[in-house]
């Protein structure tokens, strides 16, 4: 197999720097109180996982769903940064019209069924979406991300068991960043080798993958998608990664408590740096392209901020009360 070509790799790079820039900009905006609220969970550090997963989708056919660390998935799919940023600010131009906020970004056109705020709560939704694919024999597969913290609640057990029993076409990707909020997975799990749980549910175990290496992630998800699409049922992947920010941005202790670990991951295992050096090594004179992509990302994010800040805050009772029920307007 030839593997992804230069154009594809540059596109992955584009997505990753866009996500990083978007997330770090959100972080700054939050400090400046230009993004308000209490919940803002950033994807910095996890970029290779989302990008590699999306790269394996037939957009518009396959499905994707995640938890509240959801901005990066939207951007990787190609959802315009402007309405995503507008949603952060609660604007009516946001992806959810300001009703969902950071944790509830979605895009129907991309079969991105959203970000969800209850830990593990979206897992049975993923299985239900996969049930539709199986029911109507569409040949589609569902990608569902799972935080390591979610592997310890009942949704994980019940859903993966049902997915195993019914051979539902889901690629379950655990994003193991080592911490469920602030609690170390080694403290939280009886067996912290999370992929081994696949055995208990009769689903395919694809073991641990370096989640910072977009190439390895891509290959793994590719095999997993083939398995799911071909009627063999679910697959469990454990991607090892690291969170560059606290569980949410309101976590003030994170940077100091984790200083050593953070420095180590950023210096040696940064997914963007790793991809960048691969590209520089592989292609002559690629620096210019990369710099341009970095500048483009900055520009796109700056424009998204401008768009969001210039958009109106919804402010009518009618708007507040709309879309509670279908058919109600």
């Amino acid at each position: 197999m030839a593997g992804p070509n230069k154009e594809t790799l540059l596109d992955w790079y584009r997505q990753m720097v866009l996500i990083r820039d978007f997330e770090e900009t959100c972080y700054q905006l939050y400090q400046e109180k230009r993004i308000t609220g209490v919940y803002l969970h950033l994807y910095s550090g996890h970029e290779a996982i989302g990008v590699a997963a999306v790269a394996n989708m037939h957009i518009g056919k396959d499905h994707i769903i995640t938890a509240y660390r959801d901005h990066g998935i939207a951007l990787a799919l190609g959802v315009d940064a402007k309405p995503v940023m507008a949603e952060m600010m609660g604007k009516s131009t946001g992806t959810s019209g300001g009703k969902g906020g950071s944790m509830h970004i979605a895009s129907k056109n991309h079969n991105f069924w959203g970000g969800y705020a209850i830990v593990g709560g979206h897992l049975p939704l993923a299985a239900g979406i996969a049930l539709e694919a199986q029911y109507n024999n569409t040949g589609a597969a569902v990608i569902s991300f799972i935080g390591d913290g979610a592997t310890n609640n009942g949704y994980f057990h019940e859903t993966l068991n049902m997915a195993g029993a019914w051979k539902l076409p889901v690629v379950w990707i655990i994003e193991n960043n080592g911490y469920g909020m602030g609690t170390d997975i080694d403290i939280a799990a009886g067996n912290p080798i999370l992929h081994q749980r696949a055995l208990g549910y009769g689903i395919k175990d694809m073991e641990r993958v370096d989640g910072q290496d977009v190439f390895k992630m891509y290959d793994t998800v590719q095999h997993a998608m083939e398995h799911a699409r071909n009627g063999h049922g679910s697959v469990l992947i454990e991607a090892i990664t690291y969170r560059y920010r606290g569980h949410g941005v309101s976590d003030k202790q994170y940077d100091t408590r984790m200083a050593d670990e953070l420095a180590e991951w950023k210096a040696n295992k940064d997914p963007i740096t790793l991809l960048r050096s691969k590209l520089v090594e592989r292609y002559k004179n690629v620096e210019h392209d990369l710099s341009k992509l970095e500048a483009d990302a900055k520009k796109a994010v700056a424009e998204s901020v401008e768009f969001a800040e210039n958009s109106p805050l919804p402010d009518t009772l009618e708007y507040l009360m709309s879309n509670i029920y279908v058919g109600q307007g």
Partner: protein
Amino acid sequence: MSTKNLPMREALRRALLEEMRRDERVFVMGEEVGLWQGTHRVTRGFIEEFGDKRVKDTPISEMAIGGVAVGAAMAGLRPVAEFMTINFAFLALDAIVNHAAKIHYFFNGMFKVPVVFRAASGWGDQATASHSHTPEPIFAHFTGLYVGCPSNAADAYGMLKTSIRDENPVLFTESIALYAKPGPVPDDEDYLVPVGKGDIKREGKHVSLIAYARGVDWALQAAKELEKDGIEAEVVDLRWLRPLDTELVFESFRKTNRAVIVEESLPMYSFGSELAAQIQEHCFDYMDAPIKRVSSLDVPLPYSKKIELMALPDAAKIVAAVKEIL
């Protein structure tokens, strides 16, 4: 309209069967719904007709049953998920109230969740405290959800069909005590009871007995008793706890000026509390007496028969309450 006399369970079965024949997207899932024919026999014969694709026996996993049904509904199917009893639906409360009821709103209309959660409710046959709840008002607390609670076979038939055809999530409860109770059911596959529409089950002018589900049954028994004393009680069956047909209640109250609210559920933060508040707010000038409430006593249901029945409402308690305010 011609009718057939059917027990409520059979009316429900027929509604579900016809909807599955009508719409390929409709399927049932739940514990024991297939090979074992359904705990309450509502899905009797389904697996033979529709196969295991559309009649899905699930593991004992209420969280997953609730959430998988939500996901399937979002993706375009019409799941009818059965919780063997509503007591077990507590395990799925998150999927029901945080997801089924909220997804349309928090994505500002992007997705629909046309799911029906069926659950058998209540009782009084020594099922004990954890297996005897009638917590419909808890679910009705949450906007985004419809809550349907039929009191007889015909309503059960028309309300279940409406619930399946509606684009919104519905929690649909079935009083276990009424499953075997027969009643005339219309011979009309498109017989639909509109969402949020209550019904006057008996007309009267002296007092309004306001109820839903099994409460209606007790209220009708009480009305018969009261008739012997020349008291004409009007029985108002709300049928849906959400949307709540408050106009029908107010109309009845403005006529009778007195009300006894009847429910199998517990007394605090209840159907009765809600309606009493709404009546005083909207019909204060029509009020001739305090509003009375008859509900289960504020106690976990025990096992032993005599004390169990003591905790539940009945016609005699309703008659006594009416006499206190006349």
